[in-house]
């Protein structure tokens, strides 16, 4: 009996112990879970504290700067403080003055202006300022000190309108027409002392500048390469290839593409089409409306060899399709019959230049330009005046011009150039140019 009760007691005791152990285990698990949760909370709080500390540090750095500023009494320049006491002077435009002095020594014995001379070839006064948040006005006036041609010229004066729909840019006024590369540059900004022959012969001695309107935009394309299309309607005044009736404008379309070959090499291709009128009179008259078409191509390769050295290869080619009746003859006795042949007009003048320019040190660059043209032939019979047939441009001209440029500063350079020319009249010339270009103030020509 005792054994029986003892067994029951032990069994009961063990049963109780097992139940208690299970409860204890559950309790422990609950505690562990709570600890895990607390650890996560602490970890989150630590992260928050860390972030807050970083923010405090950043704010502290700002406070330190502000305190330093107060201590030192140094003013911050953001935005730049307006000059005190200047009042309306702040509204003055940006002003730049550029001088271009050229010495020219030539074999030619003719005592012409420009032969064996030293002149301020160009003094440019450039002004520009925003008119309102969406428009800007730029103007450049040039003064020329050449003995016979002293003059003042409005070189450029144009309004640029930004923020047009679809990303258009619009310009109105006197501009340098978007023809190739060289014509866009002021002559003081060229790599050479003189303009390429094809530019001076087809357009103007100093490059063509014309009143007109320009509209420009990038053409969207799947390759995301810059394809810039420019359309211009221009007054025909001032370009050698166009003349006559001013109400017949010149239309110009220019397409430019640009390829980044690598971080240091790029290549630009351009094409130009001009359509205009050369309104010759007398026996030269042919189709007198939009009888001149000019097609041009330009290519520029640039290679930045390092932070200083840069190679540029550039070429432009122009071809004209002119619609004039040949041969040119005159009615000498007034009987209505053109009885004297006086020559012929070149209906397909063309020309090109090729330029290699190498900047080989921070201050020095050198290069050479080769020019070749079959020039325009001129006939002007409006006064019944006969023109020497030798001027009808039946031959070609070429020129080679090596040069060395010393860039004293970004705002001052000196250039020595030698040019050998064989012109269409069979006359050769050797010339030496020494150019000095200097600038004060702002030169805000837009990017090409």
């Amino acid at each position, binding site marked *: 009996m005792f054994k029986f009760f003892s067994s029951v007691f032990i069994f009961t005791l063990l049963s109780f112990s097992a139940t208690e152990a299970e409860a204890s285990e559950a309790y422990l698990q609950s505690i562990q879970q709570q600890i895990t949760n607390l650890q996560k909370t602490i970890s989150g709080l630590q992260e928050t504290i860390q972030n807050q500390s970083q923010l405090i540090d950043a704010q502290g750095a700002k406070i330190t700067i502000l305190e330093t500023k107060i201590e030192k009494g140094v003013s*911050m*320049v953001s935005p730049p403080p307006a000059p005190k006491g200047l009042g309306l002077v702040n509204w003055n435009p940006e002003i730049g003055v550029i001088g271009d002095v050229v010495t020219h020594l030539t074999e030619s014995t003719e005592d012409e202006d420009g032969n064996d001379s030293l002149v301020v070839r160009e003094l440019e006064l450039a002004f520009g300022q925003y008119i309102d948040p969406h428009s800007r006005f730029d103007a450049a006036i040039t003064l020329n000190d050449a003995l016979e041609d002293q003059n003042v010229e409005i070189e450029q004066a144009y309004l640029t309108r930004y923020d047009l729909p679809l990303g*258009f840019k619009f310009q109105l006024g006197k501009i340098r027409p978007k023809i190739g590369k060289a014509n866009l540059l002021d002559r003081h900004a060229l790599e050479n002392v003189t303009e390429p022959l094809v530019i001076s012969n087809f357009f103007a001695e100093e490059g063509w500048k014309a009143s007109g309107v320009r509209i420009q935009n990038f053409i*969207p394309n799947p390759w995301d390469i*810059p394809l810039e*299309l420019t359309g211009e309607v221009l007054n025909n005044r001032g370009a050698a290839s166009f003349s006559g009736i001013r109400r017949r404008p010149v239309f110009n379309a220019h397409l430019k593409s*640009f390829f980044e070959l690598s971080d240091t090499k790029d290549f630009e291709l351009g094409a130009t089409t001009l*359509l205009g009128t050369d309104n010759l009179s007398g026996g030269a008259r042919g189709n007198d409306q939009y009888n001149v078409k000019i097609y041009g191509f330009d290519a520029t390769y640039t290679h930045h060899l390092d932070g200083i050295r840069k190679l540029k290869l550039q070429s432009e080619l122009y071809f004209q399709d002119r619609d004039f009746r040949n041969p040119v003859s005159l009615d000498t006795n007034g009987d209505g019959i053109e009885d004297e042949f006086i020559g012929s007009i070149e209906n397909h003048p063309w020309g090109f230049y090729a330029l290699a320019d190498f900047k080989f040190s*921070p201050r020095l660059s050198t290069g050479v330009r080769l020019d070749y043209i079959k020039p325009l032939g001129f006939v002007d019979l409006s006064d019944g005046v006969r023109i020497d047939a030798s001027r009808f441009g039946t031959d070609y001209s070429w020129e080679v011009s090596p040069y060395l440029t010393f860039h004293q500063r970004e705002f001052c350079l000196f250039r020595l150039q030698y040019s050998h020319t064989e012109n269409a009249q069979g006359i050769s010339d050797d010339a030496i140019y020494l150019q000095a270009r200097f600038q004060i103030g702002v030169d805000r020509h837009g990017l090409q």
Partner: protein
Amino acid sequence: MPLFLGALSLFVAPDFGLAKNEIKIVTTTKTFADLVKVVGGDLVKVDYVAPPNQNVHFVEPRPSDILRLSKADLFVHGGLDLELWRAPLAEASGKSQFFDGGPRQLDLSEGLLLLEIPEGPLSRAQGDIHVFGNPHYWTSPENAKIIVKTIADKLSELSPENKKLFEENLNRYLGELDKKILEWKEKLTPWKGKPIVVYHNSWPYLADFAGLEIAGFVEPKPGIPPTAKHIQQLLGIMKEKKIKVIIKETFFENKTPKKLSEQTGAVVINLPISVGETKEARDYISMIDSMVTQITQAFEKEMSHD
């Protein structure tokens, strides 16, 4: 005429395949591009204009830069007169919102303490004076902390829905910078107060951070090439002050610093002033790392010679 009109009609062609969610940003330098990227992360697409190995003051933007800017949401630049080509580039884009003060441009000089703000009349007879103060402010990591905050504020303004992400990126980078600043200062402490010569006046912020004294310039005036007379004067200063370190950017000529080095025993170091200028300067932090390492090694070399 039909050809002309046909060509003009191309102007209104639709835009192709542009990702709409990312913020397209053009910066003037690769350094700024790197700092924008650390804040913007994958939400931004960043292009830069100035090649790292060229003098940032005189860069010719390319047509591709104009196109990129014309399509960008934000133009980030150094402000002041750091980039003389900045305004023509913004104008060529045809969008006034990128002009100085416009709503889609960010001037990173905002809120910085600028050094060397000139006083009195200015002219180029003083060299290439920076009329608003020295603009090479990113060479101080302390300024970088303010720059990234400025970037985060602007990105949050442009994309408020991603503000939290920009702030997280900002805080993470500020943490990294703080750690590195402690490390850099520790390395530079032994050389505090040491005089140095620099080629161009690009380093006042770095010198301020490192506690170095700029005792002379290879250029007689900012941007003016060294003359024989000036070099003689500089040699006198270097010998008198026992200056043993010459700092220059990689794109300045080596001839004159080498000549100074030969006559004084000074060490010439080419420091990257822009991310990407040297292979070591892969990003902003590694650029400053490279600067600190080179400066430290130069002084250690000097010590070993002494």
